[in-house]
């Protein structure tokens, strides 16, 4: 019962946050809606017993990525007036129809398909269990993604710096 209430609460906030990102005229409002969606998704991860991911969702998404977005929006002073013009109505209509169709298709597919049920391991979201899988089964991808992060940092600095 509590689980269902919490699920609907988080799900509604997450989807409303997504809607806010889509509907906001001011990029700042969009970014704040995104923040609400990120926190609601962290709650959904907690409901799925993925504690580590919930913490990382708040730390990395809300703490780092969103701050970067806000920094750029404030740095460029992108108010509603400075933000790019709204696309023509026909593009909006086509996009809305496409997105609605996509959502309907995915929902009907997921609701009609049957997946093999399984009981999650008791230590499903624990840091130790996830860490064991991460460092034993996924050692090479883990190292590779650290290289990717390094490349992304260097690339971001070089691109944003412009002429030396």
């Amino acid at each position, binding site marked *: 019962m509590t689980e269902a209430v919490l699920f609907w609460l988080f799900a509604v906030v997450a989807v409303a946050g997504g809607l806010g990102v889509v509907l906001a005229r001011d990029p700042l409002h969009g970014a704040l809606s995104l923040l609400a969606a990120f926190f609601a998704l962290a709650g959904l991860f907690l409901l799925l017993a993925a504690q580590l991911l919930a913490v990382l969702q708040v730390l990395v998404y809300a703490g*780092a990525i969103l701050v970067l977005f806000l920094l*750029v929006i404030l740095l460029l002073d992108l108010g509603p007036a400075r933000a790019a013009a709204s696309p023509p109505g026909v593009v909006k209509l*086509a996009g809305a129809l496409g997105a609605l169709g996509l959502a309907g298709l995915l929902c009907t597919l997921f609701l009609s398909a049957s*997946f093999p049920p399984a009981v*999650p391991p008791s230590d499903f979201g624990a840091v130790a269990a996830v860490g064991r899988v991460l460092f034993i089964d996924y050692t090479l991808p883990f190292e590779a*993604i650290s290289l990717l992060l390094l490349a992304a940092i260097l*690339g971001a600095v070089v691109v*944003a710096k412009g002429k030396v």
Partner: protein
Amino acid sequence: MLHVGLAHFLAVGALLFALGAYCVTTRKNAVGILMGVELILNAANVNFVAFGHYSWGGIHGQVFALFVIVLAAAEAAVGLAIVLTLYRHYKTIDVTRAERLEG
């Protein structure tokens, strides 16, 4: 309604994905497009963890979601750096106005 299962989480993921796809396809604003990409990546994360919890995959789904978070961080850093450069060149972040590839 009261029993929450895999399908509920997948539906949330599908809705978020559709909203993100709408954002990416219709926005002219570069920052808005990047926010749409973040929504899409989050929708994928919800699906990874939900499948791991209710169906096959187990902890491996969570590890994949972890990689997706790292990827999103890298994407946001590089993408926003490109937005800054775009603004410096064109004095706007309207992606339809950026037509030349030469620096």
